[in-house]
């Protein structure tokens, strides 16, 4: 009898620990600054990129706001894979670009920060249908955005964060 109780307690503990681990993983992913879900919508106008980006938030408005920030961050740190007739867009910086310039980017991406000036156009308003997913705690929403990629690259070059193509010549 005693052995059975110990066994059940052990099983319950393992199950609880594994659930907690999964939750921690999900939370970490949810708050990760490297988690960008971006897809290409096609070839943008001169110097711009047309993308669809997903954001997470407690409510749909916050999720849409986060999506805008992720749209700019993805251009800087990860690039966008090709699609809909458009070739892949390379990242402006290497993947560790944030760590190397943490102070600059913390100011750049603060609430209402400079990053917003590189979003030309978004499908503002709270998304609906397939672009709005209700999750256990919060929302995952997608917005379509036009990002001023060339403007963003030039700004980072001027600030000395990104290297110019002709640097050294």
């Amino acid at each position: 009898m005693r052995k059975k109780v110990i066994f059940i307690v052990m099983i319950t503990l393992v199950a609880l620990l594994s659930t907690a681990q999964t939750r921690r993983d999900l939370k970490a992913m949810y708050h990760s600054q490297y988690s960008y879900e971006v897809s290409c919508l096609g070839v943008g106008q001169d110097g711009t990129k047309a993308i669809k980006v997903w954001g997470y938030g407690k409510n749909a408005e916050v999720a849409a706001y986060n999506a805008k920030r992720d749209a700019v961050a993805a251009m800087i740190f990860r690039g966008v894979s090709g699609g809909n007739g458009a070739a892949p867009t390379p990242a402006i910086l290497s993947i560790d670009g944030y760590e190397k310039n943490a102070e600059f980017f913390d100011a750049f991406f603060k609430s209402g920060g400079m990053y917003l000036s590189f979003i030309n156009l978004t499908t503002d308003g709270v998304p609906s249908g397939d672009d709005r997913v209700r999750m256990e705690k919060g929302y995952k929403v997608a917005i379509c955005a036009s990002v001023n990629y060339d403007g963003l690259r030039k700004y980072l070059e001027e600030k000395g964060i990104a290297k110019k193509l002709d640097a050294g010549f």
Partner: protein
Amino acid sequence: MKKLILIFLIIMVSLIAYSQAKKPTIMVVPSDNFCISKGYFSTVTINGAEQKIPNYKKAFQENDQIRLVITKMGAIMSDRSFPLKDLEQTLKSIDTEGTELSMMSSKSSGAAIKESPIDVLKRTAKADIIMDIDYSIKRQGPNQIISFNLRGLDAYTNKQVAAAAGVGSPSSFATADLLLEEAVLSQMDGFNGQLSKHFDDMFKNGREVVVVVRAWNGSEVDLETEFTANGEKESLAQHIENWMSTNTVSGRFSTVDATENVLKMDQVRIPMMYTYSSGREVAMDTKRFVTNLNKYLAAPPFNIVTKIYQRGLGEAWLIIGEK
């Protein structure tokens, strides 16, 4: 005191102005495949065999799409501080130069400009990086699809240093010009990303060039002649390889051919800058690099007279025995 500061500043500015590596020139050139498939070629007979060679002048005169592509690329590259060298304009300039050279004579004796057959042969369009472009527009039912292929070729090594190729999305209403513009806009960021990596590699590991040492017919010295230098009795070829090992970046070069008459070395990584004994830094190129080898061979114990011949942008020959 003020004068001293001013002199110091002027020296600093001049040193900074000199200490810039040579900026590569980039030129867009329609690919052979594009020119020949569209009928922009001339037929020449070489050694009895007929060969088709691209006629760029005809391509520019008859195809407005290729001009559009080059203009669009030029605008993007100018924006990245790399204005393109224009092939159409360069060809015109070469034609004019030829005419001017043939008509020019000196005021006092009426002498013509001295030009050897080699000089005439060398009057061609050159660039450090060639953007070799090719595209075709295909039909699929009511839709048009553009297939686009852009290759960045290093003229020094003939290696492909950047590439962008892909097929656009099918469209039933977009004109061919619009599809082309879309293809250029879509591909250029990726292409420039690869180009940037190539430049990073150049600054880290040196510029890649080709160096060939040859001997004049009748030269008393060949590459198997033995000399004693730095306490070692070795063949001239071995001494040259030792010098290359010391003077290339991380000693990187590959000997491709070595006979008593020819020593061919490729993947020679030359430094981007050269520092004179006075401390002045200047940009290094193949000719300057080979000039340094020439000075080494001119000094004892070798005392060899050599001629430097620059072949293309990234290849130089050192011909031993005579000037």
